[in-house]
């Protein structure tokens, strides 16, 4: 199978006066299309940096980032915007919904700018929000808001779904439900999902687990038999 996502010796160096801090210090990994990948590691290991670079929100200082056969490191700011617009779906820890648009409108907001969107209402139904569509974010619980956020990301029909600690602000059960939703989406739609977490307990559900440590990939292993979320306890 062709490598769908590949990072080659990606470095991200922040310059703080005299000191150079390498947030990513030569990262190499590959992810195949349709995989559910989990990037795990302690705080400061460079997970978010990886995600930001993958998502086109940040640029690598050096190295190559190949997404579906294109190296986005060379992209200009505008190209990156187009890339985010058409190829990437984001799910944040803090949902980042537009507060004065309803759930449906928040989804539709993302759809109005992309090329080949899915139907907003359908996606919302899929994430289980059929009857909360007309509510404003403030009227929804955290889990529901995260569902809207996922729906917003999915509805864009992206090549790659990036999730940054999607359960970080949620309680255990809600978190589980969200993870299940993501896993289902991956399985049912064959979407490539990269999920970042510091919680290594959820690694068994992933097809591929990438462990980060000090800005480098510590280890990468493939799960022959990923387990459903429900069976995982932490």
């Amino acid at each position, binding site marked *: 199978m062709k490598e769908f996502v590949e990072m080659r010796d990606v470095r991200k160096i922040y310059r703080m006066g005299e000191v150079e801090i390498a947030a990513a210090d030569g990262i190499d990994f590959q992810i195949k299309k349709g995989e559910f990948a989990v990037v795990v590691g302690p705080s400061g290991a460079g997970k*978010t940096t990886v995600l*930001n670079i993958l*998502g086109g*929100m*940040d640029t690598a200082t050096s190295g190559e980032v190949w997404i579906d056969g294109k190296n986005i490191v060379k992209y200009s700011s*505008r190209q990156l*915007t*187009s*890339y*985010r*617009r*058409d190829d*990437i779906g*984001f799910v*944040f*820890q*803090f949902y*980042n*919904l*537009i*507060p*004065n*648009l*309803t759930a449906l*409108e928040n989804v*539709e*907001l*993302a759809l*109005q*700018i*992309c090329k080949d969107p899915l139907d907003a209402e359908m996606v919302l139904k899929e994430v289980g929000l059929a009857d909360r569509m007309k509510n*404003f*974010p*403030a*009227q929804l619980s955290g889990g529901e808001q995260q569902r809207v956020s996922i729906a*917003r990301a999915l509805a864009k029909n992206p090549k790659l779904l990036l999730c940054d600690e999607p359960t970080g602000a949620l309680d255990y059960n809600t978190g589980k439900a969200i993870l299940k939703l993501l896993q289902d989406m991956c399985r049912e739609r064959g979407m490539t999902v990269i999920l970042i977490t510091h919680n290594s307990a959820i690694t068994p559900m992933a097809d591929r687990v990438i462990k980060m440590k000090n800005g480098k990939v510590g280890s990468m292993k493939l799960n022959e038999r990923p387990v459903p979320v429900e069976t995982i306890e932490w």
Partner: protein
Amino acid sequence: MKKNILRKDFIIEIKKTMGRFISIFFIVALGVAFYSGIRASEPSMRITADQYFDDSELMDLKVMGTMGLTKADIKAIGKVSGIEAVEGGYSKDVLCPVGDNEKVVHMLSTQKNFNQVSVVEGRLPEKAGECLVDEDFLSYTDLKVGDTVTFHSGDGEALTDSLVTDTYKIVGIGNSPLYISFGRGSSTIGTGEISGFVVVNKASFDMDVYTEAYVKVSGAAEKTAFTDEYNDLSDAAKEAVSAIEEERCAIRKQEIVDEANEKLADSEKTVNEKSQELEDAKKELESGKSKAAEELEKAKQQLTDGEAELADAKQQIADGETQLADAKAQLNDKQAQLDSAEAQYESGKAQLDQKEQELADAEQVYLSNYSKYMPIITAGKEQIAAGKTQIADGKKQLDEGLAPLNQLKDGLAEIEDGISRCDSEIAELNTQLNGMDSNEYQKYVNIPKENRNEEQQAYVEKWENLNIQLAGMQERKTQLENTKQEKLKQAGFATEADLEAQITSLTEQKEDLDAKETALLQQEQTLAAQEEELLSAGRQITDGKSQIAAARAQLDSAKSQITDGKAQIQSAWALLNEKEGTLNASKAQLASGEQELADGRSEYEQAAKEAEDQITDGQVKIIDGEKQLADAKQKIADAKAEIKKIENPKWYVQTREDALTEYQGYGDNADRMRSIGKVFPVLFFLVAALISLTTMTRMVEEQRVQIGTMKALGYGKAAIAGKYIGYALIATLGGSIFGVLIGEKILPLVIIYGYMILYKHLPAILLPYHMSYAIQASVIAVACILIATIASCYKELAAEPAELMRPAAPKQGKRILLERIGIIWKHLNFTWKSTVRNLIRYKKRFFMTIFGIGGCMALMVVGFGLKDCIYEIVSLQYEKVQFYDAATYMNDDISEENRQQIQEYLDQNADVKETIEVHMQKTDVKSASGKKTLYLMVPSDDEKIEDFLSFHSRTNKNEVYSLKKDEVILTEKMASLLNVKVGDQLTIEDEDRGDQTVTIGAICENYMSHYLYLSPEKYEELYGKPVEYNTIIYSVKDGKDDQIEKTGTKLLAMDGVLNVSYTSSIEGRLDDMLRSLNLVIVVLIVSAGMLAFVVLYNLNNINITERQRELATLKVLGFYDGEVASYVYRENILLTIIGSVVGMVLGNFLHRYTILTVEVEEAMFGRQIHWQSYLYSFLFTAAFSLFVNWVMFYKLKKIDMVESLKSVE
């Protein structure tokens, strides 16, 4: 240590939020600067002027006496309490020639301690005959320092009555504190308008008393001019001086009366003397008259005689001349005849000579011919005679030969005849026989004789007879023929033919001879003729000779005759010339006689005229003398009456306001600034305060987490709030101080500088800090913002730390009213929906922005609106309301003749289009609301006046009024001042007839001055007398505007014309005055614009900071920079538009209020803001908004997604 950390945090906070800090700083600075600056303009204006007045020792009071002020008066004034100093002075209005015109100038004396003139060039006058001239006045004349000016009197009295000299050398140019602007006041001479002033030394005046006294009031210099303190002080001093008026005037009166009586006595004496002189003169005149008449009569007689003589002589000369002319004509005639005769004689003589010559020639020829031809002729004659004889012999011979032949022939012819007779007989007989038949004869002959009948018998007989006859005949014939033959033989001829030939030849010979004879005769004849010819030639010559001899004799006698004639004519001419000479001499005599006579006549006439003139002169002189005498007597009588009538002289005690033309105007302008200062800065300040308040509130709200943390850490409320209060305090206090420092210097400077156009002689602009305004503004600014900060800190601090540390519950998205209107809502896309919801959600920000933008917009609208309303009054007044071009004011006592002349001049002037007479007078009117002064204007023609003025409503231009017989039209501003409306009663005050009430028929648009328009009928009804028109207003034809002054100058030169005023120059002056407001308005607009910019920037800044997360999300979702920006801009644009609309409405109300506040009583400003002004204001606001948005674009671009979304702060 703890404090240090907090301080550090505080400093870092300021550094981090420099934009916010600066924007609060500047908003406050702007607000304070504007507030204190505009307000400080008014006192600064006053102080600037006051300093000038104090420095130049401008008088506080001016006292003028109708009969002057004596030294004693001056002393008395000085003793009045509250008076610091007093000085007498002189002044006089004189005419100064400028080009072709004469301008009125006010001549004043230099004062030792008052009204110091500032010298621009040259020096002050130091002695009589030197002067210093007004700088402004000089600028439009050709005069310069060193020139000499001769002034003229404007009132008929010689200038030297009151001045030492009328010619002055200009030694300097300068300005006087008495005249701070262009106006120089009015005068009773010339055009009535003073154009400038001239300062001369007191020594130049030759007056017994001072014309005025200048007074300095104790303590007034310490007070600021134009303030109530100053006014109170000077009013009090005025009262005090007025208190001694009565006493002083009584003394002055007595002086004058005494003086007058003395003069009167002198005059009476003089009159009596003159009266006696006059009587003497009369007598002298009478005697002179009769003597002159006598002499003249004599001279006249002499002249008549001389004339008769001369006429006779003339006649004689004329006769002589006629005779002479006749004689000359005759003589000339004769001469002509003689000349022709002589000519004839000459030609005759010539002919004669020629003939003689010819004759001599002919004689010569004849003589030669004679000798040549005569012998020939004689010989010829002899030949001819011989020939003749020969011929005669020949003939005789021939005749002899012929005669026998002819006899023979004749015999032969007789025989021939007989033969031929026989032949004819024979023929006849044959014919008869041929008629008879021989057969018959035979038959008959055979018949015996007896048997024959008669007939037969006859027949036979006849036949037989005939035959016998025939036979006989034939026989005869033969006989004859024989004879003939015989004869011939006898003569020797064979035949008749030979005979014939013989005869013929003979005849021929004969004929030949005849021919010869004829030729000979002919020759003979010719010869005879030739001979004759020759002889006749000889005769002719002889004749010719005798003729010539006779002619010569004739000629000679003619010649002697001619010579005689010539001699006669010569003698005749000599005689004639002699006569002519005599005649000419006579003529010359005659001419000299005539000249003498003419001389005599003119001498006589001159003498007569002289005599008459002398007499008339004498008479006139006597009449004049009598009249003078009568006048003098009358004068004496008048003077006596006058002396009795002499009223107490009056004093006019004037404060600066009363005495100085432009003084009050300056005060008014300062007041106007105060009015502007009341409205504008407040609003400006309000906007500024509100904006910084919002900003501070926002800041506190943003930092709730930090507040919570600090609180949780156990810091006290004061310590926590201190940071924000300190932040606000430093920003506002700094801004305030900066604002005061800058604002109170720059704004008043700019504004006073603007007014310097009008008051250009103010030497220096003084801009002291006005602490009251500075403190007012600063305290309000600081207090407002501190209170707001404390309030929001208090709100936050009241909450539990735990709550504070949680992110603030985001404001709930809410369904808004618009969503209920499905049609609109469904058509909005999400960004629009979000925008609309956003606007509604942050109500505070919404209103702040609307108010901020609206306020700035309103300020600009007012600024532009003021410009519109103030500027347009000039064009409105002089183009829409009073559109005539000039007005001519006439003396009240102008004679009817002069009035006609003026009217005629205008009617005939090609440049003048139309004229109308009007009556203008200043009148007091009153209503329930008070008493005001206005101009009463009565046009001579109710309809024609509409070509010069328009009576119409301001609000509805189509509503046009006309002057009615029983109603009056009042101008709008006056109506509002008097608080009256159409249909109300108005009372006109009149000294003679008391109060009169009129009904207001209409209220018309008008901007400058106040007018009450009356019809002539109504005037007559009110005043009980017909209107006396004292003004002619006129308009010139299109394109002749440049001719208007020419017409005006001519008019001014006419008797009875007081003044001519041109609409264009009034317009120009007004424009100048209003232009000074321009800068003020620019200041307003620029400040408002700056405020608009700061407000928009600040609000946008808040907006973006507040929603950074939201915007970052959009970026992550893949919104391009432009799309993100437009998401924000949409709100800004909407807010700008809404704010502008609000600003327009707000501006409109504010403008109305401002206009009413700023307006002066004498004028009405426009009320309408032009739509362009709204447009400009909007465009400015929009431009600022766009600029701010442009700046914001980069700020938006810089939003870091990673940082913004990292966590909830």
